[in-house]
């Protein structure tokens, strides 16, 4: 099966006659460069349940709702009541009503009617003309024309009436969709009605197949006159909005690019990423089973809700209540934001639909919840059961939906191969992810430990270091790792290494404390000695001063005594007192 790559499908070509008429079918108008050929005939062929009638009705409904164009469906196979019931679940079903913008003409031949020979469709053309005139319809769907044609009996008669119909339609100025069954599963065409393709200006083949138990739908525009087109098989799905064809949006990418950072929910990871993820970017977390991909993605969702941002948490094969319980075990509270409606938790079975159906689900969720953030766990579930190409295509579509709306997306991707340490993502979206983190197991010392590596992060100076990821009651903790002889130490070895370092640090601290105390004592002793010396100096100074004082006193007394002696002896005033013998 050939799947056209996203971004390669858009074709814009000029059209003849009336140009292109938008079908309003998501993805189809991009595929055909504008829609169906206006005022021309489009043949939609496919097997039972391939979506032919829905295709026709949806084009009519979109014409009424989006372009104010009335429509008429002429049903050769189902009653009006059956069609109304079959379409009741579609959003646009309300337009299908009597005297409404889209009417249904019951054109079934009764089972009790007798066939009395060859007939022609002139009567049909007459009544259709009358009905169209009464309703003012500009879009016409002939649903199951092959049922009526089968009554004609010969291939020649069928061909004659089909060409009669073609001429009438050409003259009518209507845009027509003609549905017919196809029985050949290989070429998706019916030998009986092959010529329908030649008379049509546009031929759309619808196919409904089962691959590995998964129902897949694809669509192929095998003919489109006046416009180059891709004839590849494109997946589509049928949701409550009707048919949605896989589309990568416009060929030229023009996503918003915010410079704002949003927290990953793990503080240390934010640091490693220079502030967190870029808002509106796509983040991919790959890893082996049990490597904490879910927890890391859930941490982001919790952080989003803590900021008051609307978030969708889409999980595959794990119910919301189970997710809430499991995350509570690692300190992540989903119960409160889920109860408040801030967090929309949706769980799907991976095999419950085709990848395209899951894309439609995500698209519908985004429409309804208008989230700022999206978590998908795991994105690799899209590839479950139907092969990587379809899953990859669906994953790319989902990321495109998110990026075009500025939604920050964190997706996990399971590694299902036999290489648990491999960093190869099974869904090859790693190339379009802005940030890619890989969780691996590192085995050493008889145990396995989780390691986180940032493989890439566009526009971000990020850490290239491996961190050990620890799950605790309080959430995720990223621990430093040690390398010894080129080997990374994790788990117990890291713990032992941390303890060794801690003990060495403590011993070093103790020695330093001792030295500090010894130095303080020595200093105190020195200061004490210094104080004692100072005091001694002071004492000695005082002693010296005292001695000098006393000397001065003694000298004074001696002078006075000499003077007195000379006076008593009657000596000359010039006699030296020192020569006078002191009295005994």
């Amino acid at each position: 099966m050939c799947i056209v790559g996203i971004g390669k499908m858009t074709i814009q070509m000029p059209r003849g006659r009336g140009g292109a008429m938008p079908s309003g079918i998501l993805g189809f108008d991009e595929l055909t460069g504008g829609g169906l050929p206006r005022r021309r005939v489009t043949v939609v062929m496919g097997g039972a349940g391939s979506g032919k009638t829905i295709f026709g009705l949806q084009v009519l409904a979109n014409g009424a709702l989006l372009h104010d164009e009335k429509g008429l469906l002429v049903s050769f196979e189902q009653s009006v009541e059956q069609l109304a019931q079959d379409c009741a679940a579609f959003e646009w079903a309300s337009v299908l009503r009597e005297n409404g913008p889209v009417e249904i003409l019951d054109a079934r031949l009764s089972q009790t009617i007798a066939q009395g020979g060859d007939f022609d469709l002139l009567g049909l053309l007459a009544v259709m003309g009358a009905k169209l005139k009464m309703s003012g319809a500009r879009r016409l769907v002939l649903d199951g024309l092959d049922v009526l044609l089968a009554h004609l009996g010969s291939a020649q008669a069928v061909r004659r009436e089909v060409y009669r119909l073609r001429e009438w339609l050409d003259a009518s100025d209507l845009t027509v969709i003609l549905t017919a069954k196809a029985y050949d599963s290989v070429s998706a065409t019916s030998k009986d009605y092959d010529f329908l393709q030649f008379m049509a200006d546009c031929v759309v083949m619808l196919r409904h197949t089962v691959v590995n138990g998964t129902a897949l739908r694809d669509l192929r525009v095998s003919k489109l006159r006046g416009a180059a087109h891709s004839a590849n098989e494109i997946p589509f799905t049928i949701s409550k909005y009707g048919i949605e064809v896989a589309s990568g949006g416009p060929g030229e990418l023009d996503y918003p690019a915010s410079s704002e950072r949003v927290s990953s929910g793990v503080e240390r990871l934010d640091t490693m990423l220079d502030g967190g993820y870029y808002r509106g970017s796509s983040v991919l977390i790959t890893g082996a089973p049990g490597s904490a991909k879910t927890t890391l993605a859930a941490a982001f969702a919790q952080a989003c809700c803590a900021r008051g941002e609307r978030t969708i948490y889409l999980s595959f094969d794990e119910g919301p209540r189970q997710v809430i319980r499991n995350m509570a075990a690692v300190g992540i509270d989903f119960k409160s934001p889920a109860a408040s409606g801030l967090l929309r938790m949706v769980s799907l079975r991976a095999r419950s639909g085709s990848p395209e159906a899951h894309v439609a689900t995500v698209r519908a969720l985004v429409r309804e919840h208008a989230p700022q953030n999206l978590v998908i766990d795991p994105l690799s579930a899209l590839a479950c059961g139907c092969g990587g190409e379809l899953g990859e295509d669906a994953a790319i579509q989902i990321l495109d939906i998110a990026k075009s709306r500025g939604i920050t997306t964190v997706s996990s991707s399971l590694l299902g191969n036999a290489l648990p340490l491999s960093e190869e993502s099974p869904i090859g979206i790693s190339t379009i992810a802005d940030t890619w983190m890989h969780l691996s197991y590192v085995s050493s010392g008889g145990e396995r430990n989780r390691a986180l590596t940032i493989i890439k992060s566009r526009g971000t100076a990020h850490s290239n270091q491996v961190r050990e990821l620890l799950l605790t009651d309080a959430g995720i903790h990223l621990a430093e790792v040690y390398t010894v002889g080129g080997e990374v130490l994790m788990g117990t070895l890291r713990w032992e290494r941390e303890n060794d370092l801690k003990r060495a640090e403590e011993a070093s601290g103790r020695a330093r404390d001792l030295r500090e105390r010894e130095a303080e004592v020595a200093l105190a002793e020195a200061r004490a000695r210094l104080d004692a010396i100072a005091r001694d100096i002071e004492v000695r100074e005082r002693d010296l001063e005292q001695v000098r004082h006393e000397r001065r006193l003694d000298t004074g007394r001696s002078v006075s005594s000499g003077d007195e002696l000379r006076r008593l002896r009657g000596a000359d005033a010039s006699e030296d007192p020192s020569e006078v013998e002191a009295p005994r």
Partner: protein
Amino acid sequence: MSAIEPTPTVSPVPVNVRLYMAKNAPNSIIAREELEKYLASNPHILATVELIDVLDDSVRALRDGVLVTPTLVVSCDGMERRVIGNLRNAQALAAALPGPRGAW
């Protein structure tokens, strides 16, 4: 000598016959001819025949649920039978109209 039993008389059966046709389309011409021929050879059918050209009266054809031409609609005793096609299938035409004994 046995008495000769009288031949049972068949009372005419009144029916309303509408033939929806498309002007001079070959099948419509054939159907008209086949109908006239059949009624001529079955005098017990007291038919009121109405020829309706769907190209002229398409609204009536729409209302009467006519899809293909020619279409023969036979009404009798509140019941209705339809035959599509040019009526060359005599069995189909005979089944739609009252039989010789008036059975329908």
